[in-house]
């Protein structure tokens, strides 16, 4: 074991063994402790940058959620918390096996180290596998991000069917009114925009909404809105800005919302795919690191005197796990 450590170091890096006692010690460090402390501090700083990278997205999530909670309540109902929960357990277990592997490396237990790294790697595969099942399921329903969002309503059960019928009615009415408004010469651009969107939506394609002043419809009286062919409550949902539903009673996860009651659901899926996608990329990077550690462990590079890479790789894996611990409740549970 000790021999393996001695011989492998020379081939691992360009730092020749000249003048040093330990081949794993780079030339510009005085002691192994100094080198280890440098690696550890560097890794923690790197993890801080990772937290801030995700921090921007968490910040975006917080802003959008506080402005438009209905989008998140509706969106979360489209996610499968059971699959997300299983994935959480998979990652937690893999974090445990990773910590176990680090302990084995420190004690010089090569079998344990290989087993720990192997199970952790399998955990990564399991996580990505379940994630791909989830993604495929979302795509099959047309739950894409932003401009690609194109939901197919027919699988949403009774409530959705009912909503669809109502939807078509509203759209027709709005369409008719848009034409009427043109002839009367007092039509709002926003009115016809809404009509167009509904028509496009029922045709299975989401057209971008026109930009309009927030008060375009909200300022009108309930009678006038009914006259125009809108249901006042629904118009307010869309037109009231910037508070959205936050201004009235906020919805809870129990509230059943229909597609028409919630605008801009595609933004939920935008942020969902961005955050879980970026996290997935990090899982893949973590798996690559663990694979590399596995190969080095096979070669017998690590032992009680030199386990720094395993330790640092473990730190990275725990961070990836930690980010998921936040993502899971934010998207699936609340």
């Amino acid at each position, binding site marked *: 074991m000790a021999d393996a450590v001695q011989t492998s170091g020379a081939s691992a890096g*360009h*730092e*020749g063994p*000249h*003048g*040093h006692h330990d081949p794993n010690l*780079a*030339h*510009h460090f005085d002691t192994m402790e*100094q080198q280890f*402390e*440098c690696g550890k*501090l*560097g890794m923690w*700083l*790197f993890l*801080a*940058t*990772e937290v*801030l*990278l*995700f*921090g*921007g*997205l968490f*910040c*975006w999530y917080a*802003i959008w959620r506080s402005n*438009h909670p209905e989008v998140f309540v509706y969106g979360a109902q489209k996610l499968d918390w059971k699959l997300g929960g299983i994935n959480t357990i998979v990652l937690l277990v893999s974090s445990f096996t990773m910590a176990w592997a680090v302990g084995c490396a420190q004690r010089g237990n090569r079998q344990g180290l290989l087993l720990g790294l192997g199970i952790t790697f399998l955990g990564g595969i399991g996580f990505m596998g379940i994630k791909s099942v989830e993604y495929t399921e979302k795509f099959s329903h047309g739950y894409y*991000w*932003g*401009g*690609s969002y194109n939901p197919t309503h027919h699988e949403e059960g009774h409530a959705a069917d009912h909503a669809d019928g109502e939807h078509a009615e509203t759209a027709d009415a709005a369409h008719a009114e848009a034409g009427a408004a043109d002839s009367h010469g007092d039509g709002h651009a926003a009115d016809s925009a809404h009509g167009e969107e509904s028509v496009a939506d029922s045709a299975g394609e989401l057209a*971008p*909404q*026109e*930009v309009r002043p927030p008060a375009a419809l909200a300022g009108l009286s309930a009678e006038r809105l009914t006259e125009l062919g809108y249901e006042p409550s629904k118009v307010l949902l869309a037109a009231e800005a910037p508070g959205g539903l936050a201004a009235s009673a906020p919805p809870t996860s129990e509230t059943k919302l229909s597609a028409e009651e919630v*605008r*801009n659901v*595609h*933004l939920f899926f*935008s*942020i969902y795919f*961005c955050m879980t996608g*970026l996290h997935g990329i990090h899982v893949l990077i973590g798996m690559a690191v663990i694979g590399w550690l596995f190969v080095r462990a096979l070669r017998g590079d690590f032992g009680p005197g030199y386990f720094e890479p395993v330790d640092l790789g473990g730190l990275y894996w725990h961070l990836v796990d930690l980010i998921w611990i936040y993502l899971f409740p934010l998207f699936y549970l609340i």
Partner: protein
Amino acid sequence: MSTLNAPAAPAYATAVDTRNYLKASYGPVSWLLTLDHKRIGVMYLVGISVMFLLGGIFALLVRTTLLFANNAEAVDPLITAELYNRFFTLHGAIMVFIVIIPGIPAALGNFVLPIMLGAKDVAFPRVNLLSFYMWMLGTALALASLFFGAVDTGWTFYTPYSTSENSPSGMILVVTGAFILGFSSVFTGLNFIVTIHQLRRPGQTWFRLPLFLWAIYSTAVIQILATPVLGITLLLLIVEKTMKMGFFNPAYGGDPVLFQHFFWFYSHPAVYIMILPAMGVMSEIISVFSRKHIFGYRFIAWSSVAIALFGFIVWGHHMFTSGQSALMNTIFSALTFSVAVPSAIKVFNWLATMYKGSIALQTPMLYALWFIWIFGIGGLTGLFLGTLATDIHLHDTYFVVAHFHYVMAGTIFVLFGAIHYWWPKMFGRMYDERQGAIASILLFIGFNLTFLPQFVMGSQGMPRRYYSYDEVYQVYHVLSSVGSYVMAAGLLVMGYCLFTSLKRGAKAPDNPWGSNSLEWHTTSPPPLENFNGTPVADDPYDYHNLEWDPQIQGFRSKKPMVTSG
């Protein structure tokens, strides 16, 4: 000479190698794959200089266009409005992301930081080389965009200009480039923090560090904490543009102003990434060339940290006219003024250092004096912009342009001063003092001629980024353009001075200026592992130990600072 004929030895082949780092190995590969912080620093310096020239050419094109008032009515203009937009965008993006941000830390910081600490290298030499190649890759992508529809949004990439259907496709390349440059910056900062924490000599306490290192440390903290946020913002911008995510697009329910918040959360601290290292160099140069111990060491050190922290809480002052609430505007305005305090502490300490000092007006000191003038004006005009009522009038006028050039180009002046200051150490040659001084005076005159008139026309209402303008402003624009040509002339003289010194310059002594920080106690240029012996740290601003030796035309330590073995 037998050692030179031996096959190229791998870097760090032996523990004791007394050859200087320029001669330790030869050939392009020995440079491109080097792990030596000094060579990486020199490669940064070359790359940054080339990009500075390119950015400068774009600036001259902008100024030349603006010699004429009614460009929009010109028949068949040589420079169209679209081209003009690209010129100022590329000038800004290149100067900020590619030149000034990495300028002092990555080029000169890389070179002197480990030597000032008495270390053999930075903590992670391979990460350091990776940083350099990321800088190269980011720069290459940004340049490639020139051939795929160059960006015309201004360097801030504001949405919806950057994400709309007809925004140029080069956008994606530039933003990806900026993202990668950000990574380079993060890794450099990380490397420096770890190096300063872990690789100090025994006995070299925090308060014995040269103030340049305090500045670099504070800069690195900002690089680590702010740059990742820019990274995610740029990533969002890329997916927004390519996949229609809708984050910043009101047509999809997104919010374009949110981009500004995210952008300035990085880019305001980035202003301090640009200015703090310059302030660090100032503390070195002012003390050395006044031949007097730095005044208020601890105040300068802590003010660097304070600037780094304050820098994070003032970003909203870029958005006073974006529809922020009045309360937020007021808070951001008040916080903005707080940054003035640590900045002023530094300036007053430099002045106090010079007071009754024995001032030597050599080229680095000239640049340092220009900086005090330039930064004084740049800082004080910042107060007008931080004040809500006046900012409404001055927002997006040439007043803002002049203000940030007085701050950022102040950094460039210190960068030039720092290049002259460490030139003998880097290349072992003295430059011609007279040529250096002429160049610096030309640059100073040209700079003020360029930007002082911009304060005037800005306060009179000339908006920034306009291609065509009212004739009443023409006299200021012509003055400004003439000033830019004077600066170009100054740069040519400086380039000539430095280049010829490499061949014809006198051989540099180890310590030509009489500085007491550790890099002046090794040979010029330094050996591969920086010291032929073990350096002993002392107060870097105590000059009693040094005496002028006319024989070597340099200073000599009475008590040796490097012990053999």
